[in-house]
């Protein structure tokens, strides 16, 4: 199977039962994406596939051949952390850090969805042209990422600083 992982072409020979998460962690030594529940409930395994956020634990790797996969390891540029990674540090967007890679990948995918006009469950006029992200929108759109330390306020602060206040 061939993939483009964090900009690098990779070729691996794995069983078709292998999830995308296990491919990343066990075969490509990318341990940033976490296995929390392994059943699609916690979001710790969130990665970006062609820019869209998905749960890598429920994804069979075989279905994602040829796709561009971005994990937390692929977000830095020239040795500098992604602005959202910096903001998570500034705002204490974590305690133990286990959910953090998933939170950050999810937030990046989430912002791209909102930018192209995707409404959410709390959008007042889902038929409207534009969506303005606010803290309620962020909370709703990030509800698939659990944080058992309860660092939600810091997480929303970090996302808000990078993506809301800049607008």
């Amino acid at each position, binding site marked *: 199977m061939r993939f483009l992982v964090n900009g690098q072409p990779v070729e691996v020979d794995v069983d*078709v039962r292998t999830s995308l998460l296990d491919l990343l962690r066990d075969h490509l030594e990318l341990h940033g994406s976490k296995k929390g529940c392994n*059943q699609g409930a916690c979001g710790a395994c969130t990665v970006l596939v062609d820019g869209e956020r*998905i749960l890598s634990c*429920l*994804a069979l790797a075989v279905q994602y051949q040829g796709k561009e996969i971005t994990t937390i390891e692929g977000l830095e540029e020239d040795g500098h952390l992604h602005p959202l990674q910096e903001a998570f540090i500034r705002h204490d967007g974590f305690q133990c850090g286990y959910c953090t890679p998933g939170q950050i990948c999810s937030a990046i995918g989430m912002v791209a969805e909102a930018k192209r006009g995707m409404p959410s469950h709390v959008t007042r006029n889902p038929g409207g042209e534009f969506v303005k992200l606010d803290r309620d929108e962020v909370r709703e759109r990030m*509800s*698939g990422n659990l944080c058992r330390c309860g660092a939600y306020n810091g997480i929303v602060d970090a996302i808000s600083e990078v993506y809301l206040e800049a607008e």
Partner: protein
Amino acid sequence: MNPFTYERAEQAEDAVRLGSAQGAKFLGGGTNLVDLMRETIERPESLVDVTGLSAEIEERADGGLRIGAAARNSAVAEHRAVRSRYPALSRALLAGASGQIRNMATVGGNILQRTRCAYFYDDDGSRCNKRDPGQGCDAIDGFNRMHAILGASTSCVATHPSDMCVALAALDALIHLRSKRGERVVPLTEFHRLPGETPQVETVLEPGELIVAVELPANPIAQRSTYRKVRDRASYAFALVSVAAALDVEGGMVKDVRLALGGVAHKPWRAFRAEAALRGKEATAENFRAAAGAELIEAKPLGYNAFKIELAARTITAVLRELVEGAQ
């Protein structure tokens, strides 16, 4: 997870040929099937990946929409024509699962997802007629807060978990099916089955038959539709009760109405009785409440879910009032 072979279908014709093999299952986004395979509740011998088949959302000349079964839930929810002409469908999709899962899950897979009854999932410790036919049901006398109040049987009290299907039921959606014998069309309201004595048979699909598309007929009433979901958390939880409704009021009278309930039955529950009770009546809260009562008269509570009957009645009334107020 048991071993299986994997093949990706490029054409519907190939999919139905590969899917007719013994032990074959179609694979969409995998968000439910992969989980069930990991629990060895599903044990397919071969998977036929159908995510490469039509995902097109096509606006038809008659004003309806045809949605390819491989369309992702998020793509349908954000489609401009869905949001403007079938708002209940967009709202239902956005009330379901999480952003990540909506990006993976297909329309066909959403329709075919299986119940989240905890006893169905508990292969090691619980009896379940859906998982192991004839074994018995531990939900009936168990913790059945999430379970059915309408159309259940002594074999099974599970609910269908989809939000999308509740909107599709209210909007008169048609399911386009394809098999080696050809194509046929089934209304969504007749696609899922009530449990009866065979709760393991959940739909009218024949072995090897594939959902290829969902058709939404043109109907102006759909523009004034909405979806409300009542759940234990504000987000990312299955419905206790949900309501999809569309309402056409003229001169204070109900000219036409569509109503469907989620979280209450083994299938998305189209409330035909309530609709009949409302047509031609004054659009008042009292009449909405009476119509809800007409639908729920046969509701049967289990040990822990009697609250759902009153919750359903109140949610129906509230949603219809919201549609009346929105039209003013």
